[in-house]
Structures are given as structure tokens and as C-alpha cells.
């Protein structure tokens, strides 16, 4: 049930022009992600969060397709041109290697592909640099906390818990920033740009309920 709308949303993000896409990630985080803690009814808040999450997931997928496209584009450029077919972004995403041939055949499309490819490279780098909890450390911690003997943990499950902890950390900081910004707008106190323990204390209860 959940899978369908997810796919649609992904396509939508990709369809957006390259220039818009470049500017997309920060605003989404700043404006849409934070409202969650202050909207306890889950469906609404959850939806907001999901959008941002999907965009990051999309990113990595897009980057892989982009690199694929790069390879396809370079190999096809030397070959003879095919008849131009009407192809939009959706086609490109769903059938990367096939549609890239069509794109190359159109002069105006070529420049767009190059932009995409460059973005793809940047995104790949970004993805690799993302800090996370070392899996070995997490395994060790989990085993320290297990109460019964002989409990083991699958490798992919360990990675998933790592992601969970990472999201937990990032979410706490994002909520902190948003909370401070809101307080500054209300004029309660000055936003000095520092997240402090006091802020964490305020957001901890809701955060722990959400995780």
C-alpha cells in the first residue's frame, strides 16, 4: 500500500529542473522536517518527515542512474543517431540505459544530461562521506546489552540499527535547530546558534517517544 505513493513522489522530485534540484535539499530540511515534533498527531508529521527521507533515498538512486547514464552516454555519442522519440524524465528514470540513447540523439538534451551526470558525481561523494556509527562498535554495544546468552545479530540488521541511530542523532539536532529558531521568532530568547544541553532536555521527551 505504501509503496505506490512513494514511487510517485520520487518521480516528482526527479522531474524538477536541475537548478531547482540543487537548491532543494536545504529548504526541505529547514522548513519541512522540523514541524514534526510540534505536530503530535502522527500521520501529518510522519508524512512530512517521510518526504525528506525519500528525497535522500532518491538521491542515492538518482546518483546510480546518473552514473549509469554517463557510461551509456559516452558509449553512444560516437554511434549513429537514432530517430528522436518523445521522452520525459520519467522515462529516463524508469529505463535509464534505453532512454539515454534517445536523449543523446537530441542536441538540447545533451547538456541536461551532463548537468545530471555532474550532480550524480557530487551526490555519490556526499553519500560516501556520510558519517555513521561504525558497525563493529554497534555490534559490540548490542552484545553488551543483550541479556540472554547466544543472541546473535545479522549483518544487515546491524546496518539497519546503525541507520536508526544515525537518524536519531540527526533528528535531535534538527529539532534543536528548529526549536531555537521558533523561540527566536517569538522573541523569547536570542538564537546564538549554539545547541545546548538545555535545548536537548526540552526536546528529549518527544524525541524518545518518536523513536
Amino acid at each position, binding site marked *: 500500500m505504501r509503496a505506490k505513493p512513494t514511487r510517485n513522489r520520487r518521480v516528482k522530485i526527479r522531474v524538477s529542473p536541475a537548478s531547482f534540484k540543487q537548491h532543494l535539499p536545504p529548504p526541505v530540511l529547514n522548513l519541512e522536517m522540523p514541524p*514534526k515534533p510540534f505536530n503530535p498527531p502522527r500521520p501529518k508529521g510522519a508524512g512530512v518527515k517521510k518526504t525528506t527521507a525519500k528525497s535522500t533515498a532518491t538521491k542515492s538512486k538518482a546518483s546510480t542512474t546518473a552514473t549509469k547514464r554517463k557510461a551509456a552516454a559516452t558509449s553512444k555519442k560516437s554511434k549513429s543517431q537514432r530517430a528522436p522519440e518523445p521522452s520525459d524524465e520519467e522515462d529516463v528514470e524508469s529505463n535509464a540505459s534505453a532512454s539515454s540513447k534517445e536523449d543523446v540523439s537530441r542536441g538540447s538534451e545533451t547538456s541536461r544530461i551532463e548537468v545530471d551526470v555532474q550532480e550524480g558525481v557530487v551526490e555519490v561523494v556526499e553519500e560516501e562521506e556520510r558519517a*555513521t556509527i561504525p558497525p563493529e*562498535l554497534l555490534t559490540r554495544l548490542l552484545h553488551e*546489552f543483550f541479556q540472554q546468552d547466544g543472541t546473535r*545479530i545479522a549483518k544487515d*540488521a546491524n546496518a539497519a540499527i546503525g541507520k536508526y541511530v544515525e537518524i536519531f*542523532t540527526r533528528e535531535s539536532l534538527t529539532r534543536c535547530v528548529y526549536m531555537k529558531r521558533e523561540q527566536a521568532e517569538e522573541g523569547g530568547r536570542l538564537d546564538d546558534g*549554539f545547541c545546548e*544541553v538545555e535545548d536537548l532536555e526540552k526536546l528529549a521527551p518527544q524525541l524518545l517517544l518518536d523513536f
Partner: protein
Amino acid sequence: MDDELQERLKAALWYSIGKIVDEETMRLNTNATPQFIGALSEMVWAQIENVAIDLESFSRHAGRMTVNTDDVLLVTRRNDALHGIIEDFINKEKAKSAKTPGKARAKK
């Protein structure tokens, strides 16, 4: 767990959390005090403890000795958004390992 070991594990966790926080503060154009990172590390520590015990219980309830991804998904059952993210992540990882059969075979 003796105190010395606990201290060392906490230090390791602190370091890792610090790296994530640094990355995120850069992205959000903000700052976090060292005390904030310390307090957050304590929270994460407690959260991992809770999650570990939950995961163990879930896997035992399913008649298993090994925690697998289904148990992790069950941990996130209350938060639909989080459930979706983790589900995506697991599927992505699965697809990745399926694409590199050499590695998967080597694991066996």
C-alpha cells in the same frame, strides 16, 4: 559490564556521535556545544540499550537466536516515517548485495 569497559565504549560512541553531529551542524549552519554532544551520546547509549533488549525479545519471540531485519522494522513500528526510511534502507542494502554476487558468495 565493568566500569572501565563501559567508559571506553561510551568514549567510542561519543566520538562517533560527535562526527555525525559535526556533519549535521555544518549542513544546518549551526553549532553544538561539547556538552550537547555528551548529553546526546548518553541518550543514544540509553536508546541503544532499550533497542537491544527489544530486539532480543523480538527475535526470541519469533523463535530465533539471531536478530534480523524484521526485528529492526518491528522496533520502528510506532513511527510510520521512520519505518519507511528503515525499510527503504534495508531494501537498498539488499539490492546492493544482490548486485555483487561475489561478495555474497564469499560470505557463505
